[in-house]
């Protein structure tokens, strides 16, 4: 495994780049209080909309807040939202899909139609509705993202389970009298989880992007929280002051692309079969 990862680093430069970028943002987010030169919410009316300089690497926004510090702190929210959303949606989707696929029949039909109901909504609009109804804060935004994201995992899991459950070792377990729950958790899920993992890694980038989109639309955390999407939305007002929206935008871009590169690389590593199909 270690050798395979080493090989991956050597052969896939995009993967390496993705890892560097993501590790960079994770370290920055964890060390934010140490790294950032200013308090991200401290206002200073005299330093309004200053262009990038040595004192303020990324310039200042319309409240005179240091954008560099805000971008560093902002990583905390975006990363947290991306990882947590994928984690929770993945767990829900895995179990839901596994149960539907393994039990089959009417249960399968009802469960999958339910999840398709959610899938049939445009995901951004659905997330916006959930958020607007529940009131917008960080927790509710993530909740909305999870609601929108889990059915995809459920569908994938179900399709894998459908083929896995035909295997002889499942039949053997059944013959030996193992309970359905035991078969599901000990035989089926461990043998189907790989494809969900692959999808989850590529999905992190998408979720970060989605989270930023929602907070751009004013449905994220409440100000003055330094959140990337919201910072971009603030910066739109200042068309000719590129740094207000530009740097947080760049942060979203690098983070999303980096996470996608990692996802791609991991897919190549874990599932060479899938790679050939594409």
């Amino acid at each position, binding site marked *: 495994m270690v050798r395979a990862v080493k090989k991956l680093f050597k052969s896939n430069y995009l993967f390496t780049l993705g890892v560097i970028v993501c590790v960079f943002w994770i370290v920055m987010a964890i060390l934010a209080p140490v790294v950032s030169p200013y308090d991200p919410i401290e*206002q200073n009316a005299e330093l309004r909309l200053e262009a990038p300089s040595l004192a303020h690497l990324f310039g200042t926004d*319309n*409240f005179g807040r240091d954008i560099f510090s805000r971008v560093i702190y902002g990583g905390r929210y975006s990363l947290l939202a991306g990882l947590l959303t994928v984690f929770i949606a993945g767990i829900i989707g895995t179990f839901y899909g596994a149960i539907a696929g393994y039990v089959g029949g009417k249960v399968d039909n009802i469960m999958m139609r339910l999840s398709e109901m959610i899938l049939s909504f445009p995901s951004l609009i659905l997330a916006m509705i959930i958020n607007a109804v529940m009131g917008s804060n960080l927790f509710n935004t993530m909740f909305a993202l999870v609601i929108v994201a889990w059915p995809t995992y459920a569908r994938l899991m179900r399709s894998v389970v459908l083929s896995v459950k035909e295997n002889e070792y499942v039949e053997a377990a059944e013959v030996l009298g193992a309970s359905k729950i035991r078969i599901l958790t000990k035989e089926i899920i461990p043998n189907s989880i790989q494809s969900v993992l692959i999808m989850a890694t590529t999905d992190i980038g998408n979720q970060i992007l989605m989270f930023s989109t929602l907070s751009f639309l*004013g449905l994220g955390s409440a*100000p003055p929280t330094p959140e990337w999407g919201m910072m971009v939305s603030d910066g739109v*007002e200042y*068309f000719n002051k590129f740094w207000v929206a530009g740097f947080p935008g760049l942060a979203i871009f690098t983070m999303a692309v980096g996470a996608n590169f990692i996802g791609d690389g991991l897919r190549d590593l874990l599932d060479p079969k899938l790679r050939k199909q594409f």
Partner: protein
Amino acid sequence: MKKRLLALMLAASMVFGLTACGSSSTGSASSEASESATSEDGASTNSTVVIAMGSGFDTLDPGQVYEKYPQMVINACYETLFKFYSNDGAAEPMLADTYSFNEDNTVLTITLKDGVTFASGNPLTSKDVAFSLNRTKNLQGNPAFITDTIASIETPDDKTVVINLTEPDGAILSKLAYSACSILDSEVVTANGGTDAEDAATSDSAQAYLDSASAGSGMFVMTSYIPDSEIVLEKNPSYWGEATNVDKYVIKIQDDANTQMMTLSSGDIDIACNMTEDTMSELEGKDGITLLNNSTKTVSFLMMNMDESIGGPVSDPKVQQAIRLAVDYAGIQTICGEGTTTPYSIIQEGFFGSLGERSTDYTDVEAAKALLAEAGYADGFDIDLTVCDLAMEGIPLTDLAQKVASDLAEIGINVNIVSEAWAAGYGDDYRDGKLGFTVMYWGIDYNDPNVQLEFLAGGVVGLRAGWTAESDPEIASLYAKATNAIEDADREAVLKEIQEATYEYGPFVMLAQAPCPMAYNSRLTGVAFSDPYTVDLTQVNVQ
């Protein structure tokens, strides 16, 4: 790897394709605009003025218009009994020659000017005045409330109008200056389906006609109106008064500040009504362009609920005063942009009887801390500040909330900003007075200081802050006192009393009057910001 490269190239080519589409379409649009401008110029050299203004309306029928921007058009095509000739003053007679009130101020008698004719050639008589005001009242459209205090209208002869009021109304002259009280050509409007009968709301069908042409006595006539796109006004050839030298106005309904800035600098438009601080800075120092920074009467304010069960600590008058002292007014004005002012108290600067601005030196953090300690909150407290997703003339309310939160942190009040969508609950909570501590804004309905009386105890906005007339009878009594005052001197006195009474007391902290940055081509004279009309087109001349 090769495939990935291919995908990348594909993506890149798509991006280029998109930008190419974008630039070519904007390119063709601007060349079209300049072409039309030159063809118009060919007919009448340089006396065509092109204006870009905001959208948000879908009719130009004076009986229905209630939005901000159509006022500019109505003011150019129609005339009213009274008018605001300058932006800070009372309404002055326009079609009215003389006017008088009876002893108890319930009957207003107006004599009309001689020789006023409509663009159609019909003379303007008292019959038209009665028709127009009754039509507005009976249409029951958005602006119908303006005629609420008018009980009935009598027309003893062609030149005399007698307006019976339901009660003394100090704001009646300002109301008669509002677009909904424009005098329509009753003959033309009736011929096109208009009526002033009591069932006008259902039987009047003149709106379609009034959306395609004007029927007033104004300096200009409307010749074309394409909703959300363009309005064309041409000089009224038979105008009864003295006209300006502008022959034609082309009004583009296009409110993007960057487009306005670019078309103004290229000479495609002459007046840009929706600039921003950012686009103004681009035009600074540019030859041939004049910048205007004025404050509007749209005002943002902090509201602290007087009901302790809703407001909590901010229902305490001492805490309210501490907050009033803690707000950094100079900082708020900087954030809102040049031209922003903070009113003295609940009556905005620019209104008749206003005491002007609140000094930015008013902020006193030490005094605020002392007051807070006196109220029993020496260590401060935590509070939620609810804010919705609306913006005041382009300034997001969340920006103001962030500034206030940071100011109040200085005196130990820890403000937690809670965002709520206007449509998803905030609007109802605000109107029902369920919010404890919030930032909101208020745009005036018509240009009279009496609209601000709603900020008193028992007024519409006052009640939203849990400020009932019973809880504060002294302040509440000022409401009636102000509406009953008719003479300018009396009005001024009571308005002053109101402003002093709310200077350091009450649930409202007025933060800022929004600025209205505009820019225009220096070949024009007489362009000035006007609250009721945005720009008074009947005062603009070409040099």
